[in-house]
């Protein structure tokens, strides 16, 4: 099967998964003790007319399977209910997503780039002191709670050394524009993205190292050496190129974990992203927002997996041309 049919097949596979996610969401909404309407507009809504209107909108007086259909249709049109604050859930989420994406992507880049570098160095000098230090460091980082690491970073860099800010995405009390604004955001971005990305770094380092060690033993690496290529050419053009392939899938599948980490990191740094929205919603029992975020996150993970698998198929010529 060639690339096009593989992509089509993966897309089709994603649909039932999303369907199941919607079903699960629906099931949760209806399995919580109490009136399901609170999951869609929140508790303590006193405006009876409003409540009735929402009831009708989500067809809550209809039989269950019809309700599910209505729910699905609403979701597909972007109607995820209304937050207790009165704002439609979808808007509340849409506001915050870019900030979280910024944080996640920065953290991901940081983790992936430095993780791969560390992994390559580690594999080049197997069993040396550097390798042991890097490997042990990786295990240690992997065992740290993200939020504690975030707090320690704040303690050291923001409080002790005062190099970097500890809170928020932008400096308060200042209105910056243009390049100053970007720099300000960048300054605020450093610590949170490190805290978030460090777990990725550890994972990437470990995977790169073992992948490199495996590929180094392959026969075609001997051919490359026999051609008279320099050590660096062999490592980067041949070994790394092949070692990276399985890593691509892992990076994509980490989306879910990154999102979880983002929630915790945003809590420590008061970063105005979706994670912060979630924690606020959790403490306020803003069920519509909670369920909305759950849905968005699940769908995002499915999409991330999909994109990753397609990207892998694109990169590995053995899949591309068959």
């Amino acid at each position, binding site marked *: 099967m060639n690339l096009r049919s593989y992509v089509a097949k993966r897309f089709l596979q994603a649909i039932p998964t999303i369907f199941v996610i919607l079903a699960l969401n629906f099931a949760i909404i209806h399995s919580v003790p109490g009136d399901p309407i609170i999951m869609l507009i929140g508790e303590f809504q006193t405006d009876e007319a409003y409540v009735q209107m929402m009831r009708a909108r989500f067809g809550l007086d209809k039989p269950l399977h019809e309700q599910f259909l209505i729910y699905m249709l609403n979701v597909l049109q972007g109607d995820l209910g209304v937050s207790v604050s009165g704002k439609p859930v979808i808007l509340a989420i849409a506001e915050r997503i870019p900030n979280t994406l910024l944080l996640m992507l920065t953290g991901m880049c940081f983790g992936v780039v430095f993780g791969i570098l560390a992994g390559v160095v580690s594999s080049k000098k197997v069993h040396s002191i550097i390798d042991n230090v890097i490997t042990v460091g990786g*295990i240690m980082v992997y065992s740290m*709670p993200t939020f504690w690491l975030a*707090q320690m970073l704040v303690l050291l860099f923001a409080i002790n050394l005062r190099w970097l800010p500890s809170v928020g995405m932008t400096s308060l009390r200042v209105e910056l524009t243009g390049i100053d604004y970007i720099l300000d955001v960048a300054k605020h971005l450093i610590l949170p993205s490190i805290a978030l990305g460090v777990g990725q770094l550890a994972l990437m380092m470990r995977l790169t190292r073992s992948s490199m060690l495996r590929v180094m033993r392959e026969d075609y690496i001997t051919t490359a050496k026999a051609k008279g290529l320099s050590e660096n050419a062999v490592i980067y053009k041949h070994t790394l190129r092949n070692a990276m392939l399985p890593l691509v899938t892992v990076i994509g599948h980490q989306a879910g974990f990154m999102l*979880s980490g983002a*929630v915790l990191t945003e*809590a420590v740094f008061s970063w105005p992203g979706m994670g912060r929205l979630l924690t606020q919603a*959790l403490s306020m029992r803003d069920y519509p927002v*909670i369920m909305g975020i759950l849905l968005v996150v699940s769908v995002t993970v499915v999409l991330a997996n999909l994109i990753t698998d397609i990207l892998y198929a694109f990169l590995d010529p053995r899949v591309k041309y068959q």
Partner: protein
Amino acid sequence: MNRSIQANKCKVDSKFKRFSEFWRRYRKNRPAIIGLIIVAFFTTVALFAPQIAPYDPFHIAVAQVFESPNSMFPMGSDALGRDVFSGVVYGARVSLLIGFSAALTSAIIGIIIGSVAGYLGGVMDALLMRITEIFQTIPAFFMALVLVTLFGSSVWNVIILLGLLSWPRTARLIRAEFLSLKEREFVEASRAVGASSAEIIFGEIMPNALAPVIVDASMEVGRAILIEAGLSFLGLGDLNQISWGMMLNNAQPYLRTAWWLAVFPGACIFILVLSLNLVGDGLNDAFNPRLKER
């Protein structure tokens, strides 16, 4: 009658021999031994918390708020004058209880589903694997956050939830083992001698399949502890129990003024999870001895 006693004795002897071989390999791995000792240490502390902790961790002492570590409060005191050290000691209970129970729960669920899928194969297998895939797609921590908020945050809820969220990994492992072992000769031989399916599953296949599961379960304890800490950090843990995550939550507003509130509980989480990961790695190496060349 004598024959079967002898046969059983042979079994026990060989099992003992295998175990001491295994232990010898494990022992060689120094970090793994250190990890084991630390885990044992924390377990002891948790078991004897009432004896070890000098104060009730919830005991409020308004006169002694925000004391930095000193002789009366070896790890300092918090905003309400509560002793951090006592909190840390009692916190070990929650972490270890939830960690081990959740890992056990997910292992049991995973073993059941994985063995059914692996042994039966066919449609059942395909169906169970799809379900497994879907469970694996949903980010565990998110689900945990939502479900805890909706269904309550008692310790038992958390244990069950974590168990429900982590079984896919175990199920996959067991299924893979079953698939590869199902066709091997000793299973054929057992069938030929007339062993029933149950005997084959539990007597032959299971013991071999358990090794990777045990390794994964030990890592799972660490993962469960981290998730539980995260939940508590966000204020969603069991509020009646003092837990390390909760302590870090309490520490958050006071990072500038009271560093000890964050450093000690977090360090405990870190060290405990690290030790569990070292033990897991050690178990992995002991189960799969690889030929190392000088």
